[in-house]
């Protein structure tokens, strides 16, 4: 289908390994071919255009007062065709990146420089990889939402699916754009859609507050990204990926980084990845900017699944993967990414352990898993990060949608103390089984789950990369916590004695509450996602010999490649860097590349596998039900009573602190929000008293004058005539006197 003959792309050339040892010649070669990336077929624009079309159609339906499920079917069809188009794009991809030009967008020429940012799309394996799960999940979740949102048929239904389509469009722009400005456009677009959908229930104050919080916290990150984009243009003179990644300056920096000579790279260039990193932390909810994501659960559950678990929050991972060559030029960026990801993973896992709202638990686990992805990026395994993005997208969407089915069926009930034995209830079997699949994946049970393989790639890399063993151990510990809190939810809500209290949305007191089990759309989506989560295991085995599975082969052909000379360069640099430190003092906590004397991958399979099983057993012991239905060691006989209650008391205030999210929100409130609010009040009063006072004074003076002179307009005609005649007389007298005096003189 691609009939254009592609000229050799510089990136592909660098990947074949010949360029590793060639310095200046490779660079000059790269320059001559910089602008020669082939063009692709125009039908690829369907992937962008269809979601936009569905948005416009949903707006039209709203105007026409549609009260059917038509918006949902339109969105499912649009996203579905976009997914098929993405599949065709994947099938017909021959290994060389190409661009598809939609229209000229920004072209500013000044002097010798020019700023070019066209509305065009850069297609390489990384783009295809990301778009496959974005469009695929969008289709499935739109189908799910068709049933989930059916209480709101009418204008709100159209509004939901309008924003949904706009989100898919923005995400496609973000992932497929061929320059950083397109990425920024999509970045802000998904932020907007996130805001609109979190605040979907705009009559609920918590939802409005959560939407504002998400938007404002993201502004901090977006400022970083914007500054990074400006700095990229200022320093490299281009925003287009094809030109940027073959820029001789950038290649020169990577050569310097390869030998650990970071002094040769100007500080301004090293700032670019740090700024991008801030943007990624905001969008992907990393410490310290993660606080918006748990609150974002106020939105409808399909939104939480699609935007706040599977796709949008991985935009930060995509940004770093896409601009990985730039990240390699900074001495500090990737280590910071690794450490921030690790801290986030641990911190949010501890919070998730103490929450009672199952959707919040899933939200914190999303933050935690995103931390794993960032750790993977920082540990130079973009493949591990990207594979974890993919498996996480499937199983976390599944978990959210299963929780959403429970919430939908039990009138908004999300408290795990008030629900029990849901899987045994009539009509809830599919939810129970698929939820179990999702929980096993999130916990990372060895060999039988895809989440295990993707997590293992990151964990092993922590021990392979010298100096990062500490991160590895923290992440293994977090994995045990993850298994515990995941199965805590499962054992509390889905098995055990049957018990259910309706949530706030049940207002009809005349009738006894009856949970309504999910319909065909929800069940179909849950089964599909459960199958996808399991089938993703096979992706770890495809192409295993050369790369790290299918994800590895996709990533290694893109700019995010770990095996590319770029990543190799930083890898060497890191080794040398660490060795230099090793002379000064002890840095490595374990011998690099080994765990307990085994090679890192085997060691991690054993350690993390046992850790996951241990976590599940702990959860079963403390939260599991009693009797044959649950595991033999569980002791829970009532919905709200479990062994953990008495154990938690022994820890003193710690469980309460974790339940209150370690008071991070309160700390932010005290050190950031309150001072800012006080300052804004001060400026408000300055504005009100000083600025408005001056303006009002100028308005008041004429009124005062008028008030003084007003009585003279008496309404008596003769009065005016007398004053006129009198005035003229006085004037004449004055003139006379002057003339007489003049004459006398």
């Amino acid at each position, binding site marked *: 289908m691609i009939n254009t003959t592609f000229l050799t792309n510089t990136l592909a050339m660098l990947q074949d390994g010949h360029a590793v040892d060639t310095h200046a010649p490779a660079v000059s070669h790269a320059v001559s071919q910089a602008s020669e990336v082939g063009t692709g077929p125009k039908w690829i624009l369907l992937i962008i255009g269809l979601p936009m079309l569905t948005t416009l159609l949903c707006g039209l339906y709203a105007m026409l007062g549609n009260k059917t499920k038509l918006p949902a079917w339109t969105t499912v069809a649009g996203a579905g065709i976009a997914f098929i188009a993405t599949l065709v794009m994947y099938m017909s991809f021959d290994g060389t990146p190409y661009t598809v030009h939609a229209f000229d967008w920004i072209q500013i020429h000044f002097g010798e420089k020019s700023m070019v940012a066209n509305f065009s799309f850069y297609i390489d394996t990384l783009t295809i990889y990301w778009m496959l799960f974005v469009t695929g999940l969008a289709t499935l979740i739109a189908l799910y939402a068709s049933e989930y949102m059916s209480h709101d048929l009418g204008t709100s239904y159209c509004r939901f699916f309008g924003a949904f389509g706009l989100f898919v469009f923005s995400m496609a722009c973000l992932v497929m754009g061929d320059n950083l400005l397109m990425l920024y456009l999509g970045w802000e677009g998904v932020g907007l859609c996130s805001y609109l959908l979190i605040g979907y229930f705009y009559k609920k104050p918590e939802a409005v507050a959560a939407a504002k919080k998400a938007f404002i916290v993201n502004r901090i990150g977006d400022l970083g990204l914007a500054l990074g984009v400006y700095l990229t243009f200022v320093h490299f003179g281009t925003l287009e990926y094809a030109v940027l990644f073959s820029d001789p300056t950038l290649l020169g920096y990577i050569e310097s980084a390869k030998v650990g000579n970071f002094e040769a790279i100007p500080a301004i260039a090293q700032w670019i990845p740090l700024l991008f990193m801030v943007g990624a932390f905001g969008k992907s909810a990393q410490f310290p900017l993660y606080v918006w994501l748990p609150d974002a659960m106020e939105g409808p559950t399909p939104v939480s699944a699609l935007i706040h678990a599977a796709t949008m929050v991985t935009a930060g991972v995509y940004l770093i993967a896409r601009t990985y060559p730039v990240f390699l030029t900074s001495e500090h960026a990737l280590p910071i990414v690794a450490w921030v990801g690790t801290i986030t993973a641990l911190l949010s896992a501890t919070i998730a352990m103490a929450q009672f709202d199952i959707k919040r638990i899933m939200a914190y686990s999303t933050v935690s898993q995103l931390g794993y992805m960032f750790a993977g990026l920082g540990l130079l395994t973009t493949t591990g990060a990207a594979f974890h993005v993919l498996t996480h997208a499937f199983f976390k969407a599944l978990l959210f949608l299963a929780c959403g089915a429970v919430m939908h069926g039990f009138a908004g009930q999300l408290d795990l103390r008030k629900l029990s034995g849901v899987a045994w209830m009539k009509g809830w079997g599919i939810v129970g089984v698929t939820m179990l699949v999702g929980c096993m994946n999130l916990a990372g049970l060895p060999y039988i789950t895809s989440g295990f393989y993707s997590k293992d790639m990151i964990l092993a890399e922590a021990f392979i990369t010298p100096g990062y063993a500490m991160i590895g151990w923290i992440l293994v510990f977090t994995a045990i916590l993850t298994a515990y809190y995941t199965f805590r939810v499962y054992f509390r809500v889905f098995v055990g004695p049957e018990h259910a209290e309706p949530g706030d949305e049940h207002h009809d007191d005349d009738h006894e509450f009856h949970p309504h089990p999910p319909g065909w759309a929800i069940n179909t989506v849950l089964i599909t996602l459960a199958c996808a989560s399991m089938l993703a295991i096979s992706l770890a085995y495809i192409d295993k010999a050369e790369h790290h599975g299918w994800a590895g082969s996709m990533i290694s052909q893109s700019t995010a490649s770990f095996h590319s000379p770029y990543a190799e360069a930083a890898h060497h640099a890191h080794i040398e860097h660490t060795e230099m430190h090793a002379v000064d003092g002890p840095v490595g906590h374990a011998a690099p590349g080994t765990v307990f004397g085994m090679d890192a991958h085997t060691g991690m399979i054993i350690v993390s596998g046992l850790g996951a099983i241990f976590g599940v057993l702990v959860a079963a012991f403390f939260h599991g039900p009693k009797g044959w239905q649950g595991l033999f060691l569980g002791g829970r006989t009532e919905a709200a009573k479990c062994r953990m209650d008495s154990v938690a008391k022994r820890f003193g205030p710690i469980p309460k602190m974790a339940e209150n999210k370690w008071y991070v929100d309160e700390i932010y409130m005290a050190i950031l929000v309150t001072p800012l609010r006080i300052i804004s009040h001060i400026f408000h009063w300055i504005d009100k008293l000083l600025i408005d006072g001056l303006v009002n004074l100028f308005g008041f003076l004429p009124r005062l004058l008028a008030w003084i002179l*007003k009585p003279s*307009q*008496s*309404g*008596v*005609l*003769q009065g005016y*005539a*007398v004053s006129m*005649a009198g005035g003229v007389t006085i004037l004449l007298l004055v003139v006379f006197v002057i003339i007489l005096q003049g004459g006398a003189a």
Partner: protein
Amino acid sequence: MDHLLHSTQLAQLAFPEAVPAVTMAHYLFVSAAMFVMGLIGFLTRRNMIVMFLCTELMFQAAGLALIAFGRHHLGADGQTFVIFVLCVAAAEAAMALALVVLLFRHKETLSAQAWKELNG
């Protein structure tokens, strides 16, 4: 020389003999008297039509003064100006009387006092 007549000579031809006893001051006195009568009438009367007539009287007093000055300086300017003033006065009379009719229809009286509420 004879056939080249200046404007002054023309004026003298138009008014071959002036009345020697009537001087400039007489004309101005009559004019001033008319003006003062009009002014007093305007200030003392309440009837809008009478007030309007008084303004006309003041107008004509000014016109008379203009003609007198024109004759005094032996020019046609003063008379020309008065023709214009008469035109304007005619138009203004039409307007003012229409206005008076409208005001009368509102209050059923011609008294200017009736419009006292138009104050500041």
